[in-house]
């Protein structure tokens, strides 16, 4: 097939493809929806600002699980009798001294909930609750599980074809928080179509060559991914940097010749950082 013929047929195929009417309506209407939301956004911002000002004025700390100390200063008059012997000439023998007394009252706001989660190492997760405060736990306890055996994962390309098997050393899932992490000792090349793809890890650098997208399927339901789109050499000294993306948080780390890749959704940045720091 000649190039001109290919181009013609490709164009004809895609000329048939159009955005549906419903999609057009949604796209054209979303501008109008955005304009309607604007006044509410302004109100929310104002309310949020007012709350913050209140917190600053009353030294209210959101960080301490709602602990706060409100200071109130009262001034009142206090009358005390002057002891004998301290009269000046001409003064009455009985005299009271009146002075203003300033009293500061501190009121402590009770903490609402204080649950502390510690990430001690990759194998255990400790959830501790403070002894002093009553705690209501609304969410179920979360656990970390580590596969006791060594599951074998496989690589799928973006096109869906199965690549070579990788041996996966460890499978780490923080259940309920959508953190998938693959730990792999990667030394072999994987072929994807005509491309030679490899990830080489050593003490100083990670060399990733021409990978479009790798998915690791681990066990029955776990997954993790490594992705890049060109040959690149990553500085291993930058490993452990957490990147906040639009739809999740990603990080990679090299530790003792092993490449770790993390992609997390619905998790706070500090949580991912804590996990990365345990590697």
């Amino acid at each position, binding site marked *: 097939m000649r*190039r001109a013929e290919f181009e013609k047929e490709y164009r004809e*195929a895609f000329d048939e493809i159009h955005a549906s009417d419903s999609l057009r309506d949604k796209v054209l209407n979303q501008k109008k929806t955005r304009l309607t939301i604007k006044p509410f956004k302004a109100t929310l911002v104002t309310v949020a600002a007012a709350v913050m000002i209140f917190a600053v004025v009353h030294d209210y700390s959101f960080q301490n699980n709602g602990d706060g100390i409100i200071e109130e200063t009262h001034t009142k008059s206090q009358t005390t009798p002057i002891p004998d012997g301290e009269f000046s000439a001409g003064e009455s023998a009985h005299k009271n001294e009146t002075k203003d007394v300033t009293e500061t009252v501190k009121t402590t706001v009770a903490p609402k909930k204080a649950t502390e989660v510690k990430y001690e190492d990759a194998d255990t997760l400790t959830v501790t609750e403070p002894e002093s405060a009553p705690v209501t736990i609304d969410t179920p306890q979360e656990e970390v599980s580590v596969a006791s055996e060594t599951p074998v994962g496989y690589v799928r390309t973006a096109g869906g074809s199965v690549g070579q098997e990788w041996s996966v050393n460890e499978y780490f899932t923080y259940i309920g928080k959508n953190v998938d992490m693959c730990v792999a000792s990667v030394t072999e090349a994987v072929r994807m179509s005509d491309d030679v793809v490899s990830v080489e890890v050593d003490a100083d650098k990670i060399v990733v060559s021409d990978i479009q997208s790798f998915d690791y399927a681990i066990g029955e339901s776990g997954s993790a991914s490594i992705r890049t789109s060109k040959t690149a050499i990553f500085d291993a000294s930058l490993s452990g940097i957490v990147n906040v993306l639009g739809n999740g948080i990603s990080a990679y780390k090299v530790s003792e010749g092993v490449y770790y890749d993390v992609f997390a959704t619905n998790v706070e940045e500090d949580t991912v950082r804590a996990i990365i720091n345990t590697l």
Partner: protein
Amino acid sequence: MYKYTYDEIATKYIDSVYRLALSRTKSPENAEDITQDVFLKLCNANKKFDSEEHVKAWLLRVTINLTKDLFASHWYKTTDALEEDIAYTPEENSGVYDMVMSLPQKYRTVIHLHYYEGYRVEEIALITKATAGTVKSQLYRARQMLKGIIEEDEEV
């Protein structure tokens, strides 16, 4: 500075965005979501453009970025989306569509931007944030793969 209204741009380029999203995701549903998100970004970006071409290139660039985000998303990874079968086929299909859709995603992208949108190598490099050398290499490899597929078909 190029002055535009949202409605004008959305009406004019919605098909271009949708087609690129479809060529990358191979799924009409995902392509629709991506398309909607692209124009939502245009709404929110309040961006200034130098020309209409600049607008289109920006839209296609954002489409590529959002499809990358989709592939990296937890939802995408945990649903059975990576099937080898092509999810959508146009009615009038000479087979060229199927052949291109069987290529890896990066090759489909350069093929689409070059043969359908008419961009030159340097322009594709700017849109895909790759070097011109990489784009040339990808186009070359894509053509080689297509040639291989066509020759296989002819043998059959």
